[in-house]
């Protein structure tokens, strides 16, 4: 069994059978399609057409060494392919064959991986999926430019004559992706500004607002919208998938924040508790600060502001949050959004029952995953 399939089986452990069957069906094709699309985008013919000029040998070398290789490494490290899988899943629910629109399926993962490159720069993370991050390989500026080019390659890919999209679909997809990219920056502004200005009195509501316009976007809202638009769904149906993605994205981010400091197993590919090292002010931190008595609160603030990576101090911060009940409270809040998603899925009466069941199983997977 090759590495891709091994990971796939490993990942299936957290999935309900009805979802796992579908995931098993699409995972290899998604992976192959994403890699093939990336290679096509980095090819001489595509780039010369996109840029409108013949590229010199040196420029082609830069494309390969600085644009393609560091980025492709993220994909070779075996991601979960959740975004292209979601696109396939939604298209299939509308009886559309995802294989007819490979560029559209691939773009969901291409955007996601590009956002990881930029996130890694912003967080100065040394590792991603167990390997070095792009900026550790080629430098901050090059990784930033490379990630941004991958992030925005959709403007070329989806408007190409061979994308297979109707004009209205291309317009809608470009409109939605452009908007998601923009609002993601606004959400990220809050995420990066709070530690900088030492903002410790932000409210859980303000944090959740930033979540709506940050990770929620790329993780679920965007791929669900991409799938629905590509499938030819009505504007109302697209809006319902967007709402589902938003609720699920909020729940996901809360759980992801918890997993960052309390991983469910040893297969987590990130540096443990790097959110604490970076002084991130997320929901569990805000809840802990609300609940802890003064000396413990001051101690937690001190650790958050120290940018420490000392395991002992990181462990102490986690223990303080645990003792305050912040993790349980954050999980309870996440569960409210999970409940919203289940309601939204149940109301998607335009889908057949098996597809509603798969979507519900997907939601369940997100909330109960351990990695």
């Amino acid at each position, binding site marked *: 069994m090759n590495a891709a399939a091994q990971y796939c089986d490993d990942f299936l452990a957290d999935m309900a059978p009805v979802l796992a069957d579908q995931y098993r069906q699409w995972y290899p094709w998604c992976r192959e399609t994403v890699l093939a699309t990336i290679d096509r985008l980095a090819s001489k013919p595509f780039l010369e057409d996109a840029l409108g000029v013949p590229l010199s040998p040196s420029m082609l070398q830069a494309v390969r060494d600085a*644009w393609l290789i560091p980025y492709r490494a993220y994909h070779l490290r075996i991601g979960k392919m959740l975004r292209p899988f979601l696109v396939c899943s939604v298209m299939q629910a509308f009886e559309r064959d995802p294989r007819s629109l490979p560029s559209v399926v691939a773009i969901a993962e291409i955007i996601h991986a590009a956002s990881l490159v930029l996130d890694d720069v912003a967080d100065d993370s040394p590792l991603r999926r167990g390997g070095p991050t792009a900026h550790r390989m080629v430098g*901050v500026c090059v990784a930033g430019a490379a990630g941004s080019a991958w992030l925005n390659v959709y403007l070329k890919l989806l408007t190409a004559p061979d994308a297979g999209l109707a004009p209205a679909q291309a317009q809608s997809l470009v409109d939605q992706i452009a908007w998601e990219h923009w609002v993601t920056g606004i959400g990220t502004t809050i995420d990066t500004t709070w530690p900088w200005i030492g903002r410790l009195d932000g409210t859980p509501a303000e944090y959740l607002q930033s979540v709506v316009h940050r990770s929620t976007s790329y993780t679920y809202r965007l791929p669900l919208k991409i799938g629905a638009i590509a499938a030819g769904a009505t504007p109302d149906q697209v809006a319902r998938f967007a709402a589902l993605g938003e609720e699920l994205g909020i729940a996901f981010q809360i759980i992801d924040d918890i997993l960052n400091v309390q991983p469910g197993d040893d297969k987590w590919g990130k540096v443990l508790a790097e959110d604490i090292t970076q002084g991130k002010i997320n929901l569990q931190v805000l809840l802990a600060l609300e609940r802890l008595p003064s000396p413990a609160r001051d101690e937690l603030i001190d650790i958050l502001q120290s940018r420490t990576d000392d395991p002992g101090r990181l462990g102490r911060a986690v223990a303080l949050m645990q003792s305050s009940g912040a993790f349980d409270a954050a999980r309870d809040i996440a569960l409210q959004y999970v409940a919203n998603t289940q309601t939204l899925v149940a109301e998607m009466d335009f889908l057949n029952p098996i597809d509603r069941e798969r979507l519900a199983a997907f939601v369940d997977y997100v909330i109960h995953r351990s990695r």
Partner: protein
Amino acid sequence: MSMPFKAAQACATAALRHYLPQREDMDWLAEVVDRPRFGWDWPALEQGFFEPMRAWAARHDARLKPVLAGLLIDALGGDKRRHPALLAALEFSHLASCMLDDVHNGRDLAESQGEQLTMPLPVWVTVAYNARQLAPVLVMRRSPELAPADRLRLARHYLFQQHLGCLFDIWGVEQGLAHGSLLHYLTHLSNYCGAPGFGLAAATAAVAAGLDDGGVAELRQAGIALGVSLRLRALAEGEDRAILFAGRRSVEPGIHWRFACDRQVLADSAKRLDDAARYGAERLSPAAGAALSDFLDALAAPIAGDKLS
């Protein structure tokens, strides 16, 4: 500087101010970003985006790209005042490019933080990201005067080329890659350092004027040629981080990956590209050619002093 040039500059600044709130404005957030579901933290957005963006825009007030677009829109029979979002998009994109120029290409944030930056690198980079990613949104969502298909025709020219050009420039010099010929160098400059922005400005005018795909491509190419020529003229004067105009230096991203050649060769190439740009515009419309000449004449005014804009 001609009156039309000054009027286009004022129009561009007004457009930028419209899409960059000058004070707390929740309506702006709701309209241009999204309606708040839980509650926007304005103070954080002000400190982490709007204030640094306003300061940067005030320091860099030449507005050359939207000025070119405005002059060409009017020349092609349109009215630049009807396209504030398109003009603002051009300027946001330009300002973002310049914002990233003081960042070093270190392997971690500490190595990459330039001394000029007064805020942490991730915050600064996010400001630039926001400015850049707002641009296609303004084209796609804030330009009702254009048909949806025209918005798409224009949006597809945003961002990708500019980012890849930036990557070429940093990586090329860092790895010591050779351009091989002046032609290859011109190819590099056509993808980087302002030329794509001038190409976008020209394409914006062409789309706003309702030109067909061929016309858009031709005028965009003229804009790119103009952009490359302006950088070559500045390089010939020893400037690698600016365009020279009317006694001022208008900051552009620095050209790091350069080609060693005689100054006269650069100046000669610039002249040829100027002519190519004028010829391309004139072929579409004599008025467009005249507008482009007006723009070039304004830039060619005597250089004096050392004011940075």
